[in-house]
């Protein structure tokens, strides 16, 4: 009996496979997640709403600051809303209200709580069982034995770090609440850190509105895999495979799938059996590669992403193998494509361990960062680059993947700063390039190095909540840009013009007097004049006219009319002789 049990356990271990993105798994390979379909009866209704199947969260009422409390709480709500807005998932969150008084981590108090620790003296949390000095934010997760989640608490460090909320403020010295909470919610739903540079789940994020803000394709795939609506998986494709060296499984190999635009569609790392899965990719053509994580070296400039930066279970990742060239793969909806890699053992000739942010003058600035660089559509002649202690100093090329790019020749700067060699390249982004996460590639003969997803091309219009409306407009006019009243089809000022139309018109969607709807045409005939104007369906309008612009007073023409569509034609029977001036007023 014991033998049988041991055999079964061993077989199950052999089946453990890394998912795309990286999900926290238990020893049996069960993905950590909330079971929103078959509710665990042990979960409190305070934690998970059994009717709506929404994960409930409480917010500490004092937030971070005394002066910006409402916006700080809304930043957290906006982060939840972004995860919930991913099309095709069951993910749902519910603001359960505010909690007051001293808040602490407690994974058995039947409350998912998010709070700032900011008393300025103590770093003790979790009933003084932990000291979080040095941490930006932490998410404590409690799970059942099948690895489904029971309860979660998130603590944000307000003692050592400053936080801000305004997406448009250009603040580069504080941390953007929304981005960090977006990351922590990733842990809250079961994810570990991602090996993809521009992913929200990257282990680190810079101050300011960083690349963790807004969910990447990697997190979207994760949510679609862990929490799919019925039928969604059939529309997605599965890429899987096994990574070996001389037949022996490789743990911790980074697998990156790059779509036809050159953007990273997903990334993951192989588990102990060498297997990986990218299970929720959009169908299409991909290039797939295997690259090593960086060694856990004491020299902090000698690594970019290490095994322990993904999760402690990857601390033993094999880092000594040669990065592969790309393997093409065609993925079909509902299908599975297998790409295995037989790797060559050996220490890579060089790695990319740091990035150079864009600069117009390559000789004036040598800033070194360990987070992705960002560029915008239409940017031209900016220099970006990569560093490491062992980069080639000649006879190599630095390129960036994907469409719509014009790259200059590679510039080498040996020992540019603190023993780091620098390779730079001038880059111009076409206005029609595909936004997304590009990768840096160094090639020298057959030797390769990648920084996967470490260059983000930002879209012209940010749309973090996938509703088709420019977030900048929504953030400007609504305290919570993801709120129902900020949606494209909403009309919170009841002027008959939806937010989407007010965005196009350039008006204030919260002020009914701000709309400047246009008279589209005036047509004079022998029978009268037809005035056609923009209108809000269901709204009432009064048409006025006068004969000349100087002295004649505005006179109402007929009675108010109710618009039936987004354009209304009004017929002025009295105007048969000459063109008149017309004005249309929206009535309350």
């Amino acid at each position, binding site marked *: 009996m014991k033998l049988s049990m041991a055999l079964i356990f061993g077989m199950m271990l052999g089946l453990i496979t890394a998912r795309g993105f990286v999900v*926290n798994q*238990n020893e049996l390979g069960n993905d950590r997640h909330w079971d929103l379909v078959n509710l665990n009866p042990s979960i409190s209704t305070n934690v998970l709403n059994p009717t709506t199947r929404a994960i409930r969260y409480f917010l500490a009422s004092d937030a971070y600051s005394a002066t910006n409390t409402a916006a700080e709480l809304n930043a957290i709500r906006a982060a939840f809303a972004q995860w919930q807005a991913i099309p095709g998932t069951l993910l749902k969150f519910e603001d359960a209200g505010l909690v007051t008084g001293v808040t602490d*981590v*407690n*994974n*058995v*108090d039947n409350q998912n709580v998010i709070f700032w620790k900011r008393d300025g003296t103590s*770093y*003790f949390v*979790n*009933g*003084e*069982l*932990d*000291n979080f*000095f*040095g*941490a*930006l934010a*932490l998410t*404590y*997760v*409690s*799970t*059942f*034995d099948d690895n489904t989640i029971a309860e979660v608490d998130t603590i944000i460090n307000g003692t050592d770090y400053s936080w801000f909320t305004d997406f448009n403020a250009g603040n580069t010295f504080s941390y953007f609440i929304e981005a960090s909470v977006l*990351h922590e919610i990733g842990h809250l739903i079961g994810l570990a850190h991602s090996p993809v540079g521009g992913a929200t789940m990257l*282990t*680190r994020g*810079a*101050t300011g509105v*960083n690349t963790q803000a807004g969910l990447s394709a990697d997190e979207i795939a994760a949510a679609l895999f862990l929490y799919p609506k019925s039928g969604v998986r059939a529309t997605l494709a599965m890429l899987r495979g096994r990574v070996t060296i001389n037949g022996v499984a490789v743990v911790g190999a980074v697998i990156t799938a790059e779509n036809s635009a050159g953007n990273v569609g997903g990334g993951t790392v192989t588990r102990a059996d060498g297997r990986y899965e990218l299970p929720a990719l959009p169908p299409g053509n991909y290039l797939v590669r295997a690259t090593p994580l960086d*060694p*856990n*070296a*004491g*020299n902090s*400039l*000698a690594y970019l992403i290490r095994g322990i930066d993904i*999760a*402690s279970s990857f601390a033993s990742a094999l*880092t*000594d193998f040669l990065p592969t060239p790309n393997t093409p793969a065609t993925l079909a909806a509902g299908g599975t494509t297998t790409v295995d890699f037989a790797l060559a053992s050996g*220490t890579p000739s060089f*790695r990319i361990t*740091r990035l150079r942010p864009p600069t117009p*003058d390559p*000789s*004036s*600035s*040598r*800033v*070194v*960062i*360990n987070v992705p660089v960002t560029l915008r559509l239409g940017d031209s002649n900016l220099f970006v680059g990569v560093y490491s*202690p*062992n980069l080639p100093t000649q006879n190599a090329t630095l390129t960036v993947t994907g469409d719509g790019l014009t790259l200059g020749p590679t510039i080498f700067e040996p020992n540019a*700063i*603190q*023993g780091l060699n620098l390779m730079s390249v001038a880059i111009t982004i076409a206005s029609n390039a595909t936004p997304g996460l590009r990768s840096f590639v160094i090639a020298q003969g057959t030797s390769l190095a990648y920084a996967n997803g470490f260059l983000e091309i930002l879209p012209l219009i940010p749309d973090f909540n996938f509703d088709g409306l420019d977030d900048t407009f929504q953030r400007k006019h609504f305290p919570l840009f993801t709120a129902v009243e900020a949606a494209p089809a909403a009309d919170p000022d009841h002027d008959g013009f939806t937010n989407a139309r007010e965005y196009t018109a350039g008006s204030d969607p919260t002020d009914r007097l701000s709309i400047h709807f246009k008279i589209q045409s005036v047509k004079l005939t022998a029978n009268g004049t037809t005035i056609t104007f923009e209108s809000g369906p269901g709204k009432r309008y009064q048409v006025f006219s006068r004969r000349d612009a100087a002295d004649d007073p505005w006179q109402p023409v007929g009675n108010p009319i109710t618009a039936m569509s987004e354009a209304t034609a009004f017929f002025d029977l009295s105007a048969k002789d000459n063109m008149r001036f017309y004005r249309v007023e929206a009535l309350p």
Partner: protein
Amino acid sequence: MFLMTLPRIIRADQLVPLTIEQLTEHSQLIIHGAVLSRSCQRDLAGRIYTKVELEVSDVWKGALTNRVFTVVHGGGILGDRKATVSNQVEFEIGEEIVAFLVVNWRGESLSLGLAQGKFHVWQDTATQQKFACNPFHGNPAAVANREVLHRPAGSGGSLTLAELKHRVSGGNR
């Protein structure tokens, strides 16, 4: 007129690296020892936590009367529940460690800065020299035993146990 070159190295981490000097300054107790046992239980509020029993061989900061010493950290497995947090300190049975500890109001000792407060100690089999590493300082055995990277002078790398102790002593002054 000439252009100023302003080199800057900027780091951004979810777990911000603490220097050895910071770890030393903020610790109330720094001990060198080995892990004897681990056990999970609940605190009065029901939280799952882990008790780790250490056999202390040396005290680098603070004072201890007993050779066997207990530290605690949040999380663990108890019954059908598991509690975790990323970057939590982990102790393996038999592991040789240097622990940077703080004391809570109940008098329990815990790791400063989660995983950052524990250095794993390992011995080079060829030279018998001991080395130490935590997530941001020193090389683990797997790295140090091969020349993976060219390391420029003064930019870090392997950290001997003796050097760690020396830096702790310096930080104590």
